[in-house]
C-alpha cells in the first residue's frame, strides 16, 4: 500500500507505524539514532518529483495557516524559462512566537535531523541556492549541534529569531534574515514569487518540514495511512492550562479534541472551554469538545487547528478575564507599524478589560465588536485579523459570563 518513491526506498521495518512518527528516534536523537530509526535520506534522488508526492500526501502547513504544502511548492517558479534557475530560498521557520506553543521547540530538541532532512529535501525539490533555519535562542545550540553531526547540512544558515509574537510571521522571517529586524513588511507579491532579496522563497514551519522529510522517504500514501482522508497524517499539539503538565503530543489528523484532552489528563468536569489555535484562535465550549481537530471539524465554529495549540480553561476561571489579558498581550506585541493595529488593539484590550472587570455599560461590547470589525484586513500582516477573531470568539463563548457581568454578578469562583 505504501507508494515507493523509487526502487531504492523499500518499505522496511523502519517505516513508522501508528501515530508515533516524528519521535521514533527517541529523545534528543543524535544523527546515528536518527538514521537507525528512519534510514538515511539519499538527497541525490530527490528532485521536483517530491512535489507530486507531497500533493499525494495532502500535507498542510503546521505553522498556523494550514496551507496545502504542495501548492506552495508548486508556486515556486520552475527551471523552464529562467536564465539562472538556482536562485530559490527555503526557510525552516522555528520561531514559535505563540506563548502557548511548545511543539517546535520540542521537535528541534528531539528530532532536529528530521527537520534538517525536510529542509534539504525541499531545497532539492526547488533547486534552492540558500537554506535557512530560523529559530529562537533556546533552540539555536541544538540545531547547530545537529548540523555538525552530519555532512550534508553545512550549507544551512542558522539565524536567531527574537522571542516576540510576530517574529514568526512569514515576511518578518524574511526581513529578519535580510536586515536583522523581525517585523512584517509590506508586500505586493507572494514570497514564492519574490521574497528574500527578491528571490523565490519558501517559508515552512519546522514541523511541516519534518513531515516532508518523512514523505521523502516513505511516500505520500504512507503519510495518508493515519488520520482521515480530509485531514491525513499526524500533527503535533501543545496542551496547556488546566492540565497536570503542559504537554506536546503527536496525534492523528481529525482526532477529537476531547480525546486529546483525555490523553493530557484534563479532568472533564473542570473544563469550561478550550482555546484552539492559540491567541489568534477560537474558543470551543465544553458542549462541543467532541469536535474534530481539523479544518473541516472546526469550520462550523469558525476555527482551525492552527499550530495545534490547545489551552484548557478551568471552569473556575473567568474566560473574560483570561481573554482580556490575551488581547492586552496581543496589543503589546503589535509591530507598531500600521495604524489600525497600533491604535485599535490597545482600545480593544481596554474594552475587554472593562467587560471582564464588570463594567455595566452594554455599549462596551458593541464598541468592541465594531473595533474588531474595523481593524480586520487593514495592516501589513494578519495580527489584527487574528486578534479580532479571538475577541469575537470570546464574546460568543462567554456570552453568559458577559451577561452576568452586566448585571453585576460573576459566574466563576475565582474573583478578579
Amino acid at each position, binding site marked *: 500500500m505504501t507508494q515507493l518513491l523509487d526502487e531504492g526506498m523499500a518499505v522496511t521495518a523502519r517505516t513508522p507505524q501508528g501515530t508515533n512518527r516524528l519521535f521514533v528516534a527517541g529523545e534528543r536523537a543524535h544523527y546515528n539514532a536518527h538514521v537507525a530509526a528512519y534510514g538515511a535520506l539519499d538527497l541525490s534522488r530527490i528532485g521536483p518529483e517530491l512535489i507530486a508526492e507531497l500533493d499525494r500526501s495532502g500535507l498542510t502547513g503546521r505553522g498556523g495557516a494550514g496551507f496545502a504544502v504542495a501548492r506552495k511548492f508548486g508556486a515556486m517558479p520552475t527551471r523552464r524559462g529562467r536564465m539562472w534557475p538556482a536562485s530559490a530560498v527555503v526557510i525552516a521557520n522555528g520561531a514559535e512566537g505563540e506563548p502557548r506553543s511548545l511543539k517546535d521547540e520540542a521537535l528541534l530538541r528531539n528530532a532536529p535531523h528530521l527537520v534538517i532532512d525536510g529542509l534539504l529535501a525541499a531545497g532539492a525539490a526547488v533547486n534552492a541556492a540558500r537554506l535557512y533555519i530560523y529559530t529562537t535562542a533556546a533552540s539555536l545550540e541544538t540545531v547547530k549541534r545537529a548540523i555538525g553531526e552530519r555532512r550534508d547540512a553545512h550549507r544551512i544558515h542558522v539565524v536567531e529569531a527574537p522571542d516576540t509574537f510576530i517574529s514568526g510571521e512569514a515576511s518578518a522571517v524574511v526581513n529578519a534574515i535580510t536586515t536583522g529586524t523581525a517585523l512584517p513588511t509590506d508586500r505586493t*507579491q507572494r514570497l514564492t514569487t519574490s521574497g528574500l532579496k527578491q528571490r523565490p522563497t519558501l517559508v515552512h514551519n519546522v514541523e511541516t518540514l519534518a513531515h516532508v522529510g518523512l514523505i521523502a522517504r516513505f511516500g505520500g500514501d504512507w503519510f495518508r495511512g493515519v488520520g482521515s482522508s480530509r485531514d491525513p497524517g499526524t500533527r503535533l499539539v501543545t496542551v496547556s492550562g488546566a492540565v497536570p503538565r503542559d504537554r506536546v503530543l503527536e496525534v492523528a489528523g481529525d482526532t477529537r479534541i476531547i480525546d486529546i484532552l483525555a490523553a493530557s489528563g484534563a479532568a472533564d468536569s473542570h473544563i469550561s472551554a478550550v482555546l484552539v489555535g492559540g491567541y489568534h484562535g477560537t474558543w470551543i465550549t465544553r458542549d462541543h469538545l467532541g469536535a474534530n481537530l481539523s479544518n473541516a471539524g472546526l469550520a462550523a465554529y469558525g476555527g482551525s487547528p492552527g499550530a495545534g495549540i490547545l489551552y484548557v480553561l478551568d471552569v473556575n476561571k473567568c474566560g473574560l478575564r483570561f481573554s482580556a489579558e490575551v488581547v492586552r498581550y496581543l496589543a503589546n506585541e503589535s509591530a507598531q507599524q500600521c495604524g489600525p*493595529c497600533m491604535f485599535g488593539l490597545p482600545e480593544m484590550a481596554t474594552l475587554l478589560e472593562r467587560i471582564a472587570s464588570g463594567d455595566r455599560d452594554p455599549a462596551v461590547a458593541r464598541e468592541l465588536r465594531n473595533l474588531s470589525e474595523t481593524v480586520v484586513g*487593514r495592516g501589513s500582516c494578519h495580527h489584527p485579523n487574528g486578534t479580532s477573531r479571538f475577541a469575537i470568539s470570546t464574546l460568543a463563548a462567554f456570552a453568559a459570563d458577559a451577561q452576568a457581568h452586566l448585571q453585576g454578578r460573576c459566574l466563576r469562583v475565582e474573583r478578579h
Partner: protein
Amino acid sequence: MATPTNRYQLHIDWTKCDGRGLCTELLPGLLDRDKWGFPVAKTDDVNRRSDVQVPGSLLDAATDAVELCPLIALRLLPPASAS
C-alpha cells in the same frame, strides 16, 4: 495580498500610511476614514481593504492620490498582478 482581478488595485502600504487623509478626499467613493484618520475601503470584502479595486472612472483620481500621498504609502497595481 488580494486575489487577482481585472481591475487596477490601489495598494495601501500600512507600514507607511499615517492617516493624513488626502487619498480619502480624492477618492470619496472608494475610501472612508476611521477615527484615527486611516482609510477604510468601502467594500464588504475584508480581503480587499489593502488592495482596493479601482473602477476605470476613478483611475485618474487614484493616480493623483498615489502622487500626492505625503508618506508615499500608495501604489497603483495593474490588473491581475496583485499576488
